[in-house]
């Protein structure tokens, strides 16, 4: 037997495939990974400390910048947390529009997931197709708020402004094209032999490990655990919509990929129902001019973000600024299992594993 040494290879933090500033130190024995040490914190922007010197309303743009790929979802989580603290009842029309914007954000995030998975594995064309489709959703966002990606469109009690007239026809048009979009992705990617060889049976995460390590979102459901906060603990008006929760079986990379593809379809279903049921009415509830939750009140509110369970823990001291604001970031916790699923694999599998765990480093580091 040859005696071999172990050596460390650094992947990142400046690397085209690390989804931001992620640094993975791969301990290799030849071609096999013995361990993967994950270093985060390269995008730590001190958001939790900054929150203590901003008013509750001033923090809304910061909430949007947490998960910037699906930015309506973290904004929705934040405004709902404060609405819980102030006991504000949001008007019906605003609730429906929140669902629509939230689910479009989820679709945009999953489309980008497919695109960046494709480009990480070397299939650049997949990336171009996905960016083309994502642009259509960004057009919808721009129509409503003027901003493409990070639209801090929600406010406490509803929205800043109502939807423009051209939004609903454009939204329905996008939804009509989803089947064609899927055809293209399936032809190009899911049925592709090379992609299947690179994703199937690689990066397997068992259901037990997933729950123990606090994994949530599509990663958890790909391991077979049926836990979606939209069904388990419905917030907003999610209990009025009929949709399925796609589950995986083995918890490998391919399952994580397929679960997200199927979630796009389910989100399309939710948006169609919301557009059909959208009532007329007020767009924003009356809220106090200065937002000051009562002293000593603390709330933990969580939503099903595109990446998993996104939670906000806010403690109030009776003032205009939060005493403590903590964000439970799904990407931060999902990255914890990267060493677990990479051990014993090859170096290129780390890239596939990172891509299918779908971390957003802005959210992970906050």
């Amino acid at each position: 037997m040859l005696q071999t040494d172990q050596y460390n290879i650094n992947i990142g933090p400046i690397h085209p495939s690390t989804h931001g500033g992620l640094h993975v130190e791969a301990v290799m024995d030849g071609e096999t990974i013995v361990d993967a040490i994950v270093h985060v914190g390269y995008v730590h922007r001190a958001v939790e400390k900054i929150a203590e010197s901003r008013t509750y309303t001033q923090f809304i743009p910061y909430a949007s910048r947490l998960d910037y790929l699906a930015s309506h979802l973290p904004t929705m989580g934040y405004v709902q947390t404060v609405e819980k603290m102030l006991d504000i009842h949001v008007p019906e029309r605003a609730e429906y529009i929140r669902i629509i914007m939230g689910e479009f954000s989820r679709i945009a995030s999953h489309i980008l997931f497919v695109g960046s998975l494709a480009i990480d594995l070397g299939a650049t064309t997949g990336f171009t197709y996905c960016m083309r489709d994502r642009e259509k959703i960004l057009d919808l966002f721009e129509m409503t708020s003027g901003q493409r990606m990070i639209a801090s469109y929600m406010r406490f009690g509803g929205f800043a402004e109502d939807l423009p007239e051209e939004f609903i026809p454009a939204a329905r048009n996008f939804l009509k094209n989803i089947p064609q979009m899927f055809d293209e992705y399936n032809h190009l990617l899911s049925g592709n032999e090379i992609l299947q060889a690179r994703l199937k049976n690689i990066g397997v995460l068992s259901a037990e490990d997933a729950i123990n390590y606090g994994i949530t979102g599509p990663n958890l459901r790909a391991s077979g655990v049926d836990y979606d906060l939209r069904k388990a603990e419905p917030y907003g008006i999610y209990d009025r919509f009929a949709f399925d929760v796609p589950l995986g079986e083995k918890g490998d990379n391919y399952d994580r990929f397929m679960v997200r593809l199927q979630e796009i379809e389910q989100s399309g279903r939710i948006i169609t129902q919301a557009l059909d049921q959208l009532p007329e009415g007020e767009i924003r509830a009356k809220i106090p001019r200065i937002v000051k939750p009562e002293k000593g009140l603390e709330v933990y509110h969580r939503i099903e973000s595109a990446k998993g369970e996104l939670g906000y823990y806010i403690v109030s001291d009776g003032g205009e600024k939060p005493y403590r604001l903590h964000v439970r970031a799904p990407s931060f916790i999902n990255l914890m299992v990267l060493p677990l699923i990479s051990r014993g694999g090859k170096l290129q599998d780390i890239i596939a594993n990172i891509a299918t765990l779908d971390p957003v480093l802005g959210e992970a580091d906050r």
Partner: protein
Amino acid sequence: MAVNNHDEEILAKNNIIVTTFEKLWNWGRSRSFWPLSYGCNCCPIEMMASGAARFDIARYGYEVFRAASRQADVLVVAGPITAKMKPAVERVWAQMAEPKWVVAMGNCAVSGGPFVDGYSVLPGADTIFHVDVYIPGCPVRPEAPFQGLLELKKKVEKQ
């Protein structure tokens, strides 16, 4: 012996262009920047969008995003530079070969952006680099890096 304008016109009509080595050099460099694919945050997503099909940075010749710092000549600082990232960026900058330029893209790179009063974001890329072009925005629209790189092109042509 210098060539005056009148002579230049006559030569040009006969398909002969007279120029200096520097002008030729700068003409080539300015029309094919190879940006380093660096960025961690919201702004590089819009940079990716500018490279994708709708906005298509390839029209201007700048689509060659290189990951290896030896092969790139423009460091587009897209996003905030945090305390932990600072040594990595400085190292990558040192590894880049001359000539090289820096474009600060986004409010965080220009001045620290909304996170400037935090404890971990540097107040702008110009604390560690000499920045050639500043592109403001939060996040920048994908058309903005076009204007920024075209400004850089004008700057390099005059070098």
